[in-house]
């Protein structure tokens, strides 16, 4: 039989709340508390005795005591020549693309372009930093096994081979910065209420690339592209799948007009999200402007 004292003690413990972080504290003198009382050394403000530290007369960065500094002695080299004008293409690998398809983040039954890749939320680019789209790299080209209609901004021959081997198609397409900004976030763009811009032609140094059938440029001759497909299959040693009897042939051959940005929407149209309608221009001048490229 427990005595009254022990009974009382046990009842007390039972009535107490559960032991938790908010009702315990460490043993005294287990943690070190820094002395915050600085009333002692007020005179030097924590700057020590004399010298540059106390007087704030530091030598400028890069100064080497009068000796010619590294910043002066190194020869000048145009590493960053034209950095502000040159285009940048943030990379996306084929492996990443395969994963996005496997995890159902990308719908292979529809054409995949830069908007679809950005809508996954795993890829971002910044137009203000001279990013001009997606650069598809060849990492994971051996494991790639998706049949897609892809539209990117820059790619290499090996990537094209990997995609065409699996029965898909790929085009390289140029977008100018205002169009790219609209493509990055179409919802935000439609909320602005601005007409869809027409896409300008690529600059002179990019024109050769986007007119080249070997890179599947959107300005290249379609017959030359078919020839290039066959040549590439011979080069890399795979059999080119025949798309004539393919059930998704229509989807694989969907291409945008050189002035067009969004599938199914033409330049000049205004998408009204609130009233859920699309406004199209009727004026001749507007139609002429939005249907011609200068």
């Amino acid at each position, binding site marked *: 039989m427990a005595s009254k004292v022990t009974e009382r003690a046990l009842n007390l413990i039972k009535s107490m709340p559960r032991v938790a972080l908010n009702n315990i504290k460490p043993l005294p003198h287990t943690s070190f508390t820094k002395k915050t009382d600085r009333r002692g050394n007020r005179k030097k403000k924590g700057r020590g005795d004399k010298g540059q530290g106390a007087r704030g007369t530091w030598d400028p960065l890069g100064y080497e005591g009068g000796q010619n500094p590294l910043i002066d002695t190194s020869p000048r080299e145009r590493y960053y020549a034209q950095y502000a004008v040159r285009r940048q293409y943030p990379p996306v690998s084929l492996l990443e693309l395969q994963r996005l398809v496997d995890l159902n983040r990308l719908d292979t039954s529809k054409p995949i372009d830069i908007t679809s890749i950005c809508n996954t939320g795993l890829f971002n680019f910044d137009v203000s930093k001279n990013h001009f789209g997606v650069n598809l790299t060849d990492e994971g080209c051996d494991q790639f096994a998706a049949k897609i209609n892809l539209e990117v901004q820059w790619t290499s021959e090996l990537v094209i081979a990997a995609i065409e081997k699996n029965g898909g198609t790929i085009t390289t397409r140029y977008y100018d910065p205002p169009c790219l900004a609209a493509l990055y976030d179409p919802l935000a763009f439609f909320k602005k209420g601005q007409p869809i811009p027409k896409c300008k032609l690529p600059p002179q140094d990019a024109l050769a690339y986007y007119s080249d059938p070997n890179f599947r440029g959107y300005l290249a001759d379609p017959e030359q592209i078919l020839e290039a497909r066959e040549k590439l299959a011979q080069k890399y040693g795979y059999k080119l799948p025949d798309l004539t009897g393919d059930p998704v042939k229509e989807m694989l051959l969907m291409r945008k007009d*050189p002035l067009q940005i969004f599938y199914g929407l033409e330049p000049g149209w205004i998408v009204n999200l609130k009233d859920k309608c699309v406004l199209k221009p009727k004026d001749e001048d507007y139609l002429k402007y939005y249907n*011609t490229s200068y």
Partner: protein
Amino acid sequence: MSSNKAYRSATKRRKQRERGCIIGTRRKPTTQCYTGQGLAYSPPVTVTVTGSHLVDHSMGGRGVGNLRHLICSSMPHRSLPTFYPLSPHSCPQVLPFTQLCTQARNAVRSSNVSEVLHRKDVHQLSRSFSALKMKACDPQNNDRLSKCSFHTSPMSLTTPELKEWREHRVIDRFYRLPWGAWIRTQGGRKKGLYKKVPRHRWQLQQHIFCNYHQNKLLDKLVTSKWKEPKYFVDSPYEPYHQRTNSYWQPNRKKFYP
């Protein structure tokens, strides 16, 4: 000999001042030596470009889909949005202006878009530059000058603005690899080659790394814009953007289950 030495050091100082890049001078600043300070930003200019450098040729084949005819028309003096990439070769008028004054060169270098100036704007700016130069000597501007003075600029007062004014000295000579290293070229690689052994000549042509402390210094001298990764295609430095066989900076690929 002493007068010759004094003359050489004076010319050296004058040239440094003109370049706008004095560091660590022990003498007190005079009122005339800060022409390059605080004036790095030219007044806003209109950007006018002739349309001749735009696409002016007919296209051959087209992609699958509705084809539209290209109308090539030269449109003189059409104003373009500032983010449209301009070819620097299209407008040679930039050269005389940048040769005029240091701060113009600095402004053009530090701006994101290469600003193209029409001929009449050049005269306007040169006039405004001389007006600003007179202003710099004004005793009322002493406060601004003392803040921008090079000879005593404590590390704690290095603002991002000051960094931007000076970072061209680093960017002109060094290249930053994304993993924190900086590379540079060697001096003397083009001089006196006749007296150098082939091996020596080859060695001098190599681009070399800076050491740990130099890397830290150069990172401090430069704004974060230069530390962001750049995604140029066909860059000769791309193989060096990732380290190999490094214990401290392993090149870990993204894991896919």
